[in-house]
């Protein structure tokens, strides 16, 4: 079975368009400067609409993570065990993602990670791996 794929709509198209360029992009409020996540049509801090795009360096640290041993979606059965993590990016936002290309026993909170694009589907999906020294 196929994995769930992003569902592209007007409020999030900029993000997935960024992914197609292999860029992790976020919305920065033009009024108050808040970098928001997840995408929204209005700034949750100051309620203003105008925003500009910033490109993330793709560098961050693992805040916390879970190793899945059970496929809650059958599309992930072949990946078991796989890692779901919260990554704090240098630019501010905390994103939910997968840590890949790793031995899960080598993981720990606060380890530095870097972006790696999952090219399996039509739209590249931003995932992370332990930062190479």
């Amino acid at each position: 079975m196929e994995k769930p794929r992003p569902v592209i709509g007007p409020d999030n198209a900029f993000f997935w368009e960024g992914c197609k360029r292999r860029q992790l992009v976020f919305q920065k409020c033009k009024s108050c400067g808040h970098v928001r996540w997840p995408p929204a049509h209005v700034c949750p801090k100051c309620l203003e609409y105008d925003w500009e795009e910033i490109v993330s360096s793709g560098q961050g640290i693992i805040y916390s993570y879970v190793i899945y041993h059970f496929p809650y979606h059958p599309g992930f059965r072949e990946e078991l065990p796989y890692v779901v993590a919260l990554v704090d990016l240098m630019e501010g936002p905390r994103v939910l993602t997968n840590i890949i290309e790793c031995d899960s026993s080598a993981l720990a909170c606060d380890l530095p990670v870097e972006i790696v694009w999952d090219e399996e589907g039509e739209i590249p999906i931003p995932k992370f791996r332990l930062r190479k020294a």
Partner: protein
Amino acid sequence: MGRVAIIGVGQSAFVRSYPGGIRELAFEGFKEAILDAGIKVSDISASVVCSAPEYDKQRSPAGVIAEYLGLNPQPTFYVESLCSSSSMGLRVAYSLVKSGLHDIVAVIGFQKMSEITSAESQERMGRGADIQWESPFGTMMPAYYAMYAQAHMAKYGTTLEDLALIRVKAATYGQINEKAVYRKAVTLDMFSDPANPMSGPVASPLRVGDCCANADGSSCVIVANEEKAKIFSKKPVWILGLGSATAPVNVTGRELFTGLAVARAAAEQAYKMAGITPDKVDVAEVHDCFTIAEMMAYEDLGFAKPGEGKDLIRSKETYKEGKIPVNVDGGLLSKGHPIGATGGSQIRTIVLQLRGEAGPMQVKDPVIGLVHNIGGVGLYGNVTILGRE
């Protein structure tokens, strides 16, 4: 405006699979509560029916349950906040009574989790993930408690053995609670034996033994104004404090993963309303859907400082004879967790404790009790403080 009391409590046995439908299941907890309160069904002027609709086949279940329980033509309310639905129901009942709109209100919680198959249940819970920002990464909502566990262990040095100790305590009391779904003992050895199912990884760091038991069950709490409480009840238990809070559904919007912000906020409100500090609580029921959830509850409720919850369980201070007994009815881990019925069952346990009627689970002479009931993974938080005269 007078005080608001709980004058009757009841619950069905929590079982793996209840043979009847939701009407019959709801009736079991309701009947026990009516008999406990010593009232007639016609004395009830409104009902609040609570469940989590993801498990229900019946739409708008309040209507069919009010009909079956003989509660027509009085009004009924349907209240849902996932696993904290019936604590939220109590909050609604309190408001209805305190406002003077109703004098006696029944809060009826139920869940027939076996109504859908395990595969359907997993599929529905999977759908609970945000399809845009979570599903592409293979996440599943309850597994976020593992995210909290990992963060708590990394920050405070809480160990897997500490979490297992909470499961061992739950099983100690589940064995003596005749309404519990899981009546067997659990030992630390089971967690260190790879061949034992308890040690099997689910969402690491959580193992099978760290997770609560699904169950079918119902609960009922009868809430009354002071005048009616004095007429019907020799031992009314007063609602002293209520707190309630919400957090972002999207976990990336949360700052804290070493505790539940909703529990801290709800506890602060409830303590303030009751005019007490955490050290005044004599017995507590906390939402131990996973072992880590009880550990965080110790800290979020102020029974221990952040990071020191592990000391409470290591020294057995949350056992029946300890400084602050917690979940001495088996908790969600052993008693079972029929979502919509859980809060009402926790309230029942505390009411029985305060009345000195908890049988083999009775704590010595408690005056003030607390219920901590969480919906979702820290999405909805309810804290209720109860006291006897």
